[in-house]
């Protein structure tokens, strides 16, 4: 079976320091995978490489079986992302931002307007859709960015700390959104620092530490956070680090 997203032995150094050291990761259709790690573990770099924002020094990334380096642009029409900053130009309204993102991914007209309406409901931002993003709070702009990742009905989404700045009700909305998305066959990769959320959204949790995935945990079961720290500590001890 072809994985929706496959990261194969990716290595990348930045400023002469290795950041990704043989990163392997797969996400299958119909599942949500979480990637967790401490600050500095390499999450941002990993996401950038996966989305073609940074070339790996070695290794490859495949989306739906196609290497992203040689794939045609259309492939990206099936991918949605929210990484680092939500798609949110201050001079455009929330609706215009979401529609622009959707159209940039190849979605058209009616489908876009329907998507915006549905996403506005789920994420509870309908009252703010026609307000310029400059006047929206950080949390509401995050919602705009989330909608922008989903509006074109992708089958793979990559979300970096998606609940950043969201109030608890919106977090539930996002959870519902991701659950419905994977139920319809979508694949989701989510990074987070919040283990309780991760446990509720993800089917599998990969632990990233110093540029590699060290272990993969099932989120159900006791105390995910404790198990995370056990893995990280074991990895450090094995490498003889303080």
């Amino acid at each position: 079976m072809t994985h929706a997203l496959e990261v194969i032995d990716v290595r990348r150094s930045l400023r002469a320091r290795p950041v990704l050291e043989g990163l392997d990761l797969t996400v299958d259709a119909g599942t949500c995978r979480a990637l967790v790690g401490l600050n500095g573990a390499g999450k941002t770099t990993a996401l950038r490489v996966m989305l073609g924002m940074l070339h790996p020094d070695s290794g490859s990334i495949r989306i739906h079986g196609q290497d992203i380096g040689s794939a045609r642009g259309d492939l990206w029409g099936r991918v949605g992302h929210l990484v680092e900053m939500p798609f949110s130009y201050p001079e455009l309204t929330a609706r215009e931002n979401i529609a622009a993102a959707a159209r940039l991914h190849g979605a058209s007209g009616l489908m876009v307007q329907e998507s915006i309406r549905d996403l506005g409901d789920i994420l509870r931002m309908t009252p703010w859709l026609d307000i310029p993003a400059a006047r929206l709070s950080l949390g509401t702009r995050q919602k705009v960015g989330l909608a922008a990742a989903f509006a074109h009905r992708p089958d793979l989404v990559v979300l970096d700390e998606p609940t950043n700045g969201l109030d608890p009700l919106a977090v539930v909305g996002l959870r519902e959104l991701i659950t419905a998305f994977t139920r319809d066959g979508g694949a989701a990769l989510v990074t987070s620092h919040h283990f309780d959320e991760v446990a509720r959204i993800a089917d599998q949790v990969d632990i990233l530490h110093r540029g590699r995935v060290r272990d993969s945990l099932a989120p159900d079961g006791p105390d995910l956070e404790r198990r995370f720290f056990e893995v990280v500590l074991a990895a450090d001890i094995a490498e003889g680090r303080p």
Partner: protein
Amino acid sequence: MNDAPAVSARGLIKTFGSTRALDGLDLEVAPGEVHGFLGPNGAGKSTTMRVLLGLLRADGGTVSLLGGDPWHDAVALHRRLAYVPGDVELWPNLTGGEAIDIFARLRGRWDRAHRDDLCERFDLDPTKKARTYSKGNRQKVALISALASDVDLLLLDEPTAGLDPLMEAVFQQAIGEVKAAGRTVLLSSHILAQVEALADRISIVRQGRIVETGSLSELRHMTRTTFVAETDRVPEGLDEIAGVHDLSIEGAAVSFRVDGDRVDEVVRALAPLGVRSLVAHPPTLEQLLMRHYGDSSDDVTGSTDDGTGSTLEQETAR
């Protein structure tokens, strides 16, 4: 230091075009307390912070900060307060340490040793240039400079956004120290566990107004504790106790919710039944908030939506 409130706002109004961001907001933060500031997205939290920082001028109402007017006395007040935003921008070519020093010097006295200690605890290398920092590290720079400064008031707006759980723990510890030193903290955050652990009192804002304010225990009195118990004898008579709600009995297992001020009565009613197991959770902050968050967009869109509300209750009751 007198007993005048560190922050006092009465009837604050702020409009942006057709949007009424603040609609008669009253807020009071006592000196030396950690005050949690909560509310749904778009409720007016950041706008309130900006008014307190003197970045925005309120269209109506009164506000005082550390005894002064935040708009007119901004320069003087900023030497006595520290602000950490949810999204930190730094000068790319300065190192983290230099950025921290600049912020701290703007506020007058500061402590080098304390700054170094915080850098270590937050695992931040202050010798690296700011443009090499991840979002989490930029956040740490702002946090450390605020915590290391000798100020009277800290205004924190989602201060731990992007920080991992280790850093969250360091942050909570550091706030404890700040509090012990007698400083006041206004903490706006969506991380309920954080607010629950740190705040002495909280204020909940919705649609530009404060809808609830008080200490966690005061607020708990207003809501219900959930009980799940297994008893030897079939529980009877529980439904007759005032304040018991949603009673459900399945064989020897019983679950119900009790008004905060009736808990003692209920425990005494359970004891003679031979309690085999008992789990009681006081309302979490999440449950307290859901009353206020749940209706917000219903008000605006004009529809009632009980469905979502009860799903949330089921979720949070866990």
